[in-house]
C-alpha cells in the first residue's frame, strides 16, 4: 500500500482541537505538517496531549474542531477502516492478542485483507527476521515471550501489510534501559531501510533526540515548538531549556552521587 507520490505532507493538522464533553481542551488549536518519510517525535510530559494527537490520526478519537488530512484528503472523507489499515499502530502495552499465536498476531491484518495463506506465512517469516526475531517463535503465544520480544512482535505486526504510516505510542516505554537502547538502534536501521512516515510519542528526551528527524514539543495541549534535532539541541526557548535541564540535571546528579 502506498500514498500518492506527489509532495503533499503525509499528515496535516489544521487548527485541530479536541475537547471532550465537559473537560477542557486536551489538544488546542494544533497546526502541524508531517512530511513523508520523516520520523516526527511528539515530546511532552504526561497529559500534554501527545497520545491524544496520535489517536486523532487513526480516528480512535475524533477532533471537535479543525481538520486533519491524510495524504491531502480530509480524514472524514476516508473510509475509517481503510484508513486504519494504511496506518500501522504500536502502543506501549503492545496490545498483542493473548489468544493468538505470534503468527496469527502478525498476520491478522493481511488475513482480513484476504491475502492467501502461504503469502501470509511468508510475510510473517520475513517480518520476524526484519525485527530480529527467530522465525521459529511464530507458533508461540505472547505470554511465552519476553517484554522485548513482544515489543518487536508489536512492531512486526504494525508493519505486516506494509502501511506507509506508522504511529508509535511510547512503544519502548516499558522496557529495561538496555533492551530499550537496542530496540531504538534497530528502529533507526529499520527506518533507514523502510522510509515510513512515523509519528512517535515519547516523554523521553534522549529517545526523541536519537530517533526524531523533527521534534514537536507539546505542553498542555499546545504545540510549543517544532524543531529539527539540531535546532532542538541549540534552542534557547524556555520550555525546551527546561526539558533539557531536567535531563541534564538528572544525569549530573547521578554522576555526583556515584
Amino acid at each position, binding site marked *: 500500500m502506498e500514498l500518492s507520490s506527489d509532495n503533499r505532507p503525509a499528515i496535516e493538522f489544521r487548527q485541530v482541537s479536541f475537547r471532550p464533553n465537559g473537560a477542557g481542551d486536551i489538544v488546542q488549536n494544533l497546526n502541524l505538517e508531517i512530511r513523508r518519510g520523516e520520523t516526527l517525535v511528539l515530546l511532552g510530559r504526561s497529559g500534554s496531549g501527545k497520545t491524544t494527537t496520535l*489517536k486523532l490520526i*487513526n480516528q*480512535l478519537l475524533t477532533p471537535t474542531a479543525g481538520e486533519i488530512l491524510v495524504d491531502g484528503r480530509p480524514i472524514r472523507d476516508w473510509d475509517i*477502516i*481503510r*484508513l*486504519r*489499515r494504511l*496506518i500501522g*499502530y504500536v*502502543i506501549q*502495552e*503492545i*496490545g*498483542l*492478542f*493473548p*489468544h493468538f499465536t505470534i503468527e496469527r498476531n502478525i498476520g*491478522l*491484518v493481511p488475513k*482480513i485483507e484476504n491475502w492467501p495463506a502461504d503469502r501470509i506465512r511468508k510475510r510473517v517469516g520475513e517480518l520476524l527476521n526484519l525485527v530480529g526475531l527467530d522465525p521459529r517463535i511464530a507458533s508461540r*503465544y*505472547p*505470554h511465552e515471550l519476553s517484554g522485548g520480544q513482544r515489543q518487536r512482535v508489536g512492531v512486526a*505486526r*504494525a508493519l505486516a501489510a506494509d502501511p506507509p504510516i506508522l*504511529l508509535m505510542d511510547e512503544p519502548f516505554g516499558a522496557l529495561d534501559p538496555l533492551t530499550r537502547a537496542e530496540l531504538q538502534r534497530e528502529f533507526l536501521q529499520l527506518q533507514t531501510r523502510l522510509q515510513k512516515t512515523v509519528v512517535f510519542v515519547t516523554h523521553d528526551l534522549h529517545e526523541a533526540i536519537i530517533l526524531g528527524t523533527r521534534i514537536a514539543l507539546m505542553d498542555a495541549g499546545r504545540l510549543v515548538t517544532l524543531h529539527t534535532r539540531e535546532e532542538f539541541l541549540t534552542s534557547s526557548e524556555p520550555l525546551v531549556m527546561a526539558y533539557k535541564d531536567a535531563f541534564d540535571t538528572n544525569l549530573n546528579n547521578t554522576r555526583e552521587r556515584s
Partner: protein
Amino acid sequence: MNVWQFVLQNHVELVELILEHVWLVSVSMVLAVIVGIPLGIAITRWPSMNKPVLGSANVIQTIPSLALFGFLLPAPWIGERADRLAILALTLYALLPLIRNTYAGIKGVDPAVVEAGRGMGLTNRQLLFQVELPLALGVIIAGVRVATVLLIGLTTIAAAIGAGGLGEYIFRGLAMVNNAVILAGAIPAAALALLADVGLGWLERRLSPHAA
C-alpha cells in the same frame, strides 16, 4: 424400605425422570443462551440498555420459583402444558448469570488489546468475534456453569406444577413422609448438578485464553 430397595424396584421410572430432568434443563439452557448471550453483548454496545436489562433479569431472579411457575400459569399456549411453563420459567432464571457474565467477560478484556485491534482497522464485528468473544469465553462459560447448576436444582420444583423430573420423587416422598423416596429424587439431582459443575468447569479452563 431404604433408598436402594426403592431405586431397584423403580429403576425404569427413575431413569425416565432423570432423562426428563435433563431434558427440561437442556432445553431451558439452550433457550437462555440464545437470548442471554446476545443480550449481554448488546449491553456492552449500548450502555443505556445496561441498567434496564440487568435490572429486569435481577428482578426475575428474586421472584420465588414456585410463585413464578404460578404467575405464568394463565399465559396462553405456555400455560397449556406444564413442561412449556417450566421451560419458560427456568429460561428466565438462567438469564441473569448469562447476561451478567457475558457483559463482565467482554468488559474485562484488556482495553489495550481492544484499542490495538480497533487501531489496526478491525471492524466492530471482527473485533467482537475475533478478539472480544474469544477472550471473554472463559467468563461466559463460567456463567453457563452457574446457570446450569442453578437450573438443575430449580427443576426439582417444576414437579410441583406437574412438569416431571426428579422433583416427582421429592414431592411424593414429602407427601408420603418417606425419606427413602425423597432421597431417590434428591441424590440423582445433586449428582447431576455436580456432574454439570465439574464438566463445565473443565470446559471453562480449556477455553480460557492464555494468560497475558
